[in-house]
């Protein structure tokens, strides 16, 4: 009888042939959040208040209260987050089938382009060229856009605000439906503060990644880090949001399993 599959997996993990990579940013009060025009409702940043720390408020224990929005820090976007996804089945973080919290990942490295052009948009042509080199994107895989945005200085360079708004990379309006229809992807992930580009409100439709991904019951991950530690193909992502009733998203720990050879 062959070794049970999970025992084999654990053996690979313990031997170091499979490595765990943390794709999560640390939650701190300073971590930037998406900025909407001030007259709109705003997402809460991460805030933390100590309850006690081995002191008169609780002599033997340390703990904190914290508050934040569903879309603060490294977080998951559920389809219900966008109006296009509001009527999809199982579209909130509590109803998404748990199988969908594990998926393989393709990492498209556009960091060189983004260093030159903060408004870089990922195109169908670019993805096809990437496939020539690294192979076809498999079904139900996360497409993660490596921009090295997570290495930028927080918060100024990361949000990269100018008088006309934020300037950060993202997918263009054609590549998102193409990834869904032609490659049946699982979702789209980025290092910047949203899955869409900083200037995506000028695209048609505005915010195409949100619009098409959620409109097709696919998911989003943003504020990722350490994408430079993943191979173009072959990593597996574990990304399970908190089980918030009817939640539109959630901060979460995103872990990647990646082969070392």
């Amino acid at each position, binding site marked *: 009888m062959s070794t049970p599959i999970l025992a084999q997996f654990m053996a690979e993990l313990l031997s170091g042939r499979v490595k765990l990579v943390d794709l999560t940013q640390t939650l*701190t*009060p*300073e971590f*930037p959040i998406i*900025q909407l025009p001030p007259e709109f*409702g*705003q997402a809460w*940043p991460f*805030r*933390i*208040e*100590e309850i006690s720390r081995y002191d008169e408020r609780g002599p033997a224990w340390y703990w904190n209260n914290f508050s934040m929005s569903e879309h603060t820090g490294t977080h998951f976007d559920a389809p219900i987050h966008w109006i296009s996804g509001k009527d999809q089945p199982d579209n909130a973080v509590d109803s998404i089938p748990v199988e969908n919290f594990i998926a393989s990942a393709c990492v498209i490295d556009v960091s060189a382009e983004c260093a030159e052009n903060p408004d870089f948009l990922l195109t169908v042509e670019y993805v096809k060229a990437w496939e020539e080199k690294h192979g076809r994107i498999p079904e139900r895989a996360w497409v993660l856009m490596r921009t090295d945005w997570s290495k930028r200085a927080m*918060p*100024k360079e*990361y*949000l990269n*605000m*100018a*008088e006309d708004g934020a300037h950060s990379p993202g997918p263009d309006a054609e590549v998102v439906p193409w990834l869904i229809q032609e490659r049946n992807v699982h979702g789209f992930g980025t290092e910047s503060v949203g899955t869409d580009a900083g200037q995506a409100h000028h695209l048609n439709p505005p915010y195409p990644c949100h619009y098409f991904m959620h409109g097709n019951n696919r998911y989003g991950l943003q504020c990722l880090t350490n994408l430079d530690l993943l191979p173009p193909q072959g990593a597996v992502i574990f990304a399970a949001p908190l089980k918030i009733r009817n939640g539109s998203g959630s901060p979460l720990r995103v872990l990647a399993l990646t082969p070392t050879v």
Partner: protein
Amino acid sequence: MTEPLVKPKKKNPVLRTRLATLPPVPRSRTALGLTRAAAEGVFEMQVCADCGTVQYPPREVCGSCLSEHLAWKPVDNRGELIATTTLRHSNDLYFRERLPWRVGTVKMAAGPSVVAHVHEDCAEGGSVRLTLKLDRSGQAVLHALPEKDTPNMNDAPQLRESTCDPKFRRVLVTDGKSATGMAVAKAMLEAGANAVFLGDASTWKTVPAFDKLVASDPRLQVVELDVTDTDSVDRLAASIGGKVEILVNTADYLRDGGILNRKDVNLARDAMEVNVLGLMRLAQAFGPGMCFRAADGSNNAVAWVNILSIHAHAALPARGAWSASKAAALSLSHTLRAELRGAGVRVMNVFPGPVDEEWEQLTPPPKIAPSGLAKAIVKGLQDGVEDLYVGDIAEELRTRLRENHKAVERELGQ
């Protein structure tokens, strides 16, 4: 002639910091009428409704006709300095550390003869102006000042004990990027502040006017400060808490809307986070350090300024949550005042009417220019008041609240 105050030297770090002592507190409840007048910067005494006699010290019945009808009213503050003496010895801890101390008797044009602290530029036998000020205990005391302003008169150590002059002091403006914050910073520099720390809660945002201001004077220093973030407040206090001698809390979160026109409490909660809990975080982080330095030389920590609103006293239903946050901040400020009084650090509450800034765009004039508000704050500190009403609307509402607060409530709700 008053010797101009010299810029304080850098502190000797191995000398023990002088701790705060307070002048004695012997006043009766009736005398708190004087405290109110001094707190608001007006000169009022009891006047007998029956015979017109001006009373001093405050009393229950008229010293002349025994009538009980004594009303606090503005009275002529002029007088003649008939005798002075300079104290060189005192058994009181507070005065011992501040000798010599000049006192004298003033024969007021309004009638009474009063004992007052006497400014060094007042000549015996000459005319003087009397003013009511709060001493470090928060008690009203009379100061005799020269008939006309003299050069550097506010620098006189005895007067400076009753005021909170920004000259040679270091100021933290908690939101330095707002229109009011920038104006306050400018006014503090003009008033001779040694340094102004400008809090910035949105370092990612470029505000050209702010950059221009920061480049204009080396005494300005930008510091990261978000009053909704306990860690941010604590970090700043750990870094500059020992240098803040005047704290001006300009942080404000103003959004329109009553209660029933929204389905959530998010904006209300954001307003409370900034306007109420923000004040509390600042107090917990900066209050103890300021108390510790409340008697530390000529640039001792002296004042905590809250920019509230006249609507802290009377809700504006069009901005219901914001009004509630201002009322809560006012209540909190009274606790803070009680807690800082033991060290002699003064809490000055500022009650402006509408200020001419972006969130008041649709408010019809008259509105106070941020620069006007800032100048009033500086003057309030120089005068040493506790409650400062700024602008016609604030003054009018304050008067009408005293006359008929129900009428004000009804009218603001229309």
